[in-house]
Each structure stands twice: as structure tokens, then as C-alpha cells.
């Protein structure tokens, strides 16, 4: 218990008491393009929910922020770090999807006056899931969850949308249900940087919270995007594009093949979830936290295939 407390104090101290920007790494991966790499971990009180990759595009006139982190504390640290890089107004806060590690920091950006932007299905997803996220994450994050509010987008993307930041026009694209039901990517043609949100996982085992087949389909279509490097939703950044898609594709293909075989044999979902995808275990982190879940949802989806 004492050790836990000390760890928390150590984690919070630089963010809360000291200079928040110093503790929050934000690197310039291309001129005017900033990214922060989250820890490959579950959200905890100790890491303040800082597990997802975040970023920002700075144009001639304004800034667009991509995702805000897994707590109000992290969102504030991100904002402070960004303010050290640029004083230009933050015109947009873009959420790549509805998951807590990407949106719990939204509240930190409300006072900037930014327009919150998301997939057309994001408001619905936040309505259906937001209250559950707030209560479920209290158990694992404790007081690190304090102050978190669900901030839905006021501008939504049906298919594609271009935002002009001044000499930098970024292209937002909404996708069919894949990793989740509200995935959005952001491409900056000028720098060749793509923010994929959780349509791409690196090292962190992919999480399927929408559709396994949709995820495979969208990941293949992503490959056609003319980018040179990618900031994945999780894992090292930046990564080479489109080569970075390969490991994830292998995982999703293996899982799909194993589940189809189990369904054909007449296995039940519980048994299939224990075995499907197991061959991929050594290649990924957090495999035991998410693979059985992916397999369970994938089984329920693939069961409808065929006559």
C-alpha cells in the first residue's frame, strides 16, 4: 500500500506540482508536427491513463490537436507541453474514436475554445459508453480519474473533411466500423504524416471493439493512403508507412482463420476464445489482456458467415 502511494506521488509530482510540460514528452517528428508516445500498458492510477499516442499539427494560423489522453491531468500536461512549442490558437481538437485513453483529457481543452471534431458516430458512441467508462475506470484509476468529463464533438465527419490551419491543410477521413464504430484518421499531405488512431496498433496487441472483418478491410484500404510515416494509436512513433501495417494484418488474419476453423468444428465461444490467435502470443504485448476479448467478439461476428 505504502509503495503504491509513493509510486503515485512520484508519478503525479512532476505533472501536478512541478512544470507539467517537462514531464510530458512531445517530440517534433516533422516540421510543425508533434507527437507524444503513451506507455504500452493498461490505464492505471500510476500512469494517469497515459497509454495512447497523441499529437498536434501546427499551421501558419492555428493548431489542431489529435486526441487528448486518458485523464484530465494528462490532458492538462499535454496542453502545457504544446503551449511551450506554440502560442498559436488551438482551433480544433480531433478525437480519433471514443475510447477513454484518447478522450478523457478533452476537458483540459474546453477553455481553449477549440472546436471538438469526430466521426459522425462519435456522439452516439460517447452517449452509449461514456457513463460506463466513467464508472468502470474509477476502479483502476481511482482519483486519477477526478475531473474527467465526456466532451462530445460539435463538428462531425461523415466521409472526409479538410481543415485549413494556414499553409497546412489536414484531411480527416471517417471509416466504416473497424477497430471501433467511430474511427477517424488524419493525414497531413504536406509532411506525409498520418495519424491512424487505433486503426493501427504497434507492439500493443490490436483491440477489436467494432468488427474483425471491418478492421481487416479498413486496414487494407488504409495502405493506399499516400503517407510516408504514421503515428499509430499505440506503439513506437513515427513508423514507416505502409510497412507498419504488416504485423497487425498478420494478427487479424490469424485470429480470423482460427475462429472460422473453430466455428466450422462446432466449438462454443468460450472454448474458441481460449485458443484462437494463440500462435501470435509472443509477438505482442498485453496479449492476455485483449486476445480472448477479440476472439469472443470475433466469434460472435463470424458465426453469422455462410448459410
Amino acid at each position, binding site marked *: 500500500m505504502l509503495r503504491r502511494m509513493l509510486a503515485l506521488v512520484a508519478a503525479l509530482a512532476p505533472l501536478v506540482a512541478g512544470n507539467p510540460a517537462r514531464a510530458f514528452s512531445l517530440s517534433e517528428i516533422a516540421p510543425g508536427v508533434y507527437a507524444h508516445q503513451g506507455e504500452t500498458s*493498461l*490505464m492505471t492510477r500510476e500512469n494517469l491513463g497515459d497509454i495512447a499516442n497523441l499529437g498536434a499539427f501546427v499551421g501558419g494560423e492555428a493548431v489542431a490537436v489529435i486526441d487528448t489522453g486518458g485523464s484530465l491531468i494528462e490532458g492538462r500536461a499535454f496542453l502545457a507541453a504544446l503551449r511551450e512549442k506554440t502560442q498559436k490558437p488551438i482551433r480544433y481538437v480531433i478525437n480519433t474514436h471514443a*475510447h*477513454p*485513453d484518447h478522450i478523457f483529457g478533452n476537458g483540459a481543452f474546453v477553455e481553449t475554445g477549440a472546436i471538438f471534431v469526430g466521426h459522425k*458516430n462519435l*456522439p*452516439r*458512441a*460517447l*452517449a*452509449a*459508453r*461514456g*457513463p*460506463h*467508462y466513467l*464508472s*468502470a475506470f474509477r*476502479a*483502476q484509476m481511482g482519483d486519477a480519474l477526478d475531473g474527467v468529463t*465526456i466532451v*462530445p464533438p460539435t463538428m462531425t465527419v461523415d466521409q472526409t473533411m479538410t481543415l485549413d490551419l494556414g499553409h497546412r491543410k489536414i484531411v480527416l477521413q471517417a471509416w466504416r*466500423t473497424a477497430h471501433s*464504430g467511430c474511427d477517424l484518421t488524419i493525414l497531413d499531405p504536406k509532411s506525409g504524416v498520418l495519424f491512424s488512431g487505433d486503426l493501427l496498433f504497434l507492439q500493443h496487441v490490436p*483491440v477489436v*471493439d*467494432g*468488427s474483425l472483418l*471491418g478492421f481487416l478491410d479498413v486496414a487494407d484500404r488504409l495502405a493506399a493512403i499516400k503517407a510516408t510515416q504514421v503515428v499509430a494509436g499505440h506503439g513506437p512513433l513515427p513508423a514507416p508507412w505502409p510497412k507498419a501495417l504488416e504485423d497487425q494484418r498478420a494478427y487479424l488474419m490469424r485470429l480470423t482463420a482460427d475462429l472460422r476453423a473453430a466455428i466450422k468444428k*462446432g466449438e*462454443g*465461444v*468460450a472454448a474458441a*476464445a481460449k485458443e484462437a490467435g494463440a500462435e501470435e502470443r509472443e509477438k505482442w504485448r498485453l496479449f492476455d*489482456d*485483449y486476445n*480472448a*476479448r477479440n*476472439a*469472443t*467478439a470475433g466469434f*460472435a*461476428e463470424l*458465426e*453469422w458467415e455462410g448459410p
Partner: protein
Amino acid sequence: MNTAARSAAGALFALLSTAALAQTAPDPWPELVVDIFHSRPIAAADGVIALEAPARAEDAAIVPMTMRFADPTQIKVATLVIDQNPMPVAAAFTLGDKSGVGFIETRVRVNSYSNVHAVAETRDGKLRADAKFVKASGGCSAPAVKDEDEAVANLGKMKYREFKSADPAKREAQIMIRHPNASGMQMDPVSRAYLPAHFIDSVEVFQGDAPIFKMEGGISLSEDPTFRFTYAPNGAKTIRVEAHDNKGGVYKGEWPIGDAS
């Protein structure tokens, strides 16, 4: 509808109001026994009913549950209760007299750490229960619909599957119904309106004209409700299903029984 099933269905709605209390109460089960089973004594399962549940809900929206019956002729109603859910009664299955149902597997939503009870009402009017504790899923897993547009587009589609039964005297089958089974308990943050509830509230399964089971349930069942079960064949040529939802939707299916015995 028999009395037990009706009272279970009524309890679904009565319990919505006590959901907030159940979340903070140390153990909601004593209250649930009052509300669902009218304080009748509940004996240990003693092999009459057995519940199989995973130790952890991997996906909060899809948690497989299996109720097994040692002697189906003794079982009148089997009720599956997710103690901590806003609507704890996931499903109450009234078994057909000669159905010979050996097990029923379905999938439920599990919102948080919860005991799950499988309660059998035997033909002598007594209650017996088995229970398992299920840990909540981690991460961003939510007991919500995966793809609401697709769920609506496919509404009411059904699928029938047959399996080789481990018991040679029985047949094994699965009924699947496309339905969002949406809870309607969340508020839209933009419009401040509650999303409408839309869920399957009854499913009747027959071989020929003889009932295998009638399920009465609610929003704790997963989207696309599915039921896998064994039954004693009576020579009928078809399996027939009639399902109803809370908005008056009626969904019917009928399939020839194959050779997969």
C-alpha cells in the same frame, strides 16, 4: 405465460428502479430474492442445475453462460440473474414438458464485477440455485452495441445451426437472432434525450408443435441473442422459432431438422 415467468418478466422492470442501490449495496442478492422470487427459500443446486461462467468477462458485451440440467424432466423454469446489472434478470427459460433440454448456452452483458445466479424452479415448486462470480472486463470494453447501423440493418434475421450432440439420445442446435438488444438507458449528450430501448423480450422454440423452451428476457442479453441447447427429438421435421421485441416486432423462422444427431 406461467406465473413464474410472468413474475420474472415483471421483475425486469421493477428492478430498473433499484439499479442504483444495487450498485452500491455490498450484495444485492438478498433483495433480488425478494423481488424476483418473492422471498421463497432457495436451496443449493445439488447437481439439479449447474452454471458455467467464465472467471472474467473478456468482452463486457458478450459473456457466455451455460446452464446445465441433470434431469430436465424435473425443471420447470431456469432463470439467469446477473446480480449487479441494471436489469439483473437476463433470461427466464420455461422448458417444454417433454423437451429433454440438457443445457442452454446464451450470452449476456456483464457491467461490473458480479455474482451470476442460475436458479431452477423444479416441478415440485422448489427453487435451487448455482452461482459463479464473474470479474468485470478491463480496458475499453463496454456492454454496448458494436455497430448500431448494422444492428438495425439486419434486424430480425435468424440463423439455425445443428451440432453433433455429445449425448446420442439428444440433438444439439443453436438459434441466433439479429437484434441490437439495446438498453436505452443512456442519455445522448447532445440532445439530452434518452436513447430508446429496443430489445427481444420473448423467444419461443418448438420442434414441430411441441415447445422446447420459452425464453423471457431483457437488455442483459447480448446483442444478436443466441441460444445453443440440446433437446430430446420427438420425430418432428422442423424447428420453429417465434421472437418478440418490446416495440411489437415479431420475428419468425422455421428450418428442417437435419441428420446431425
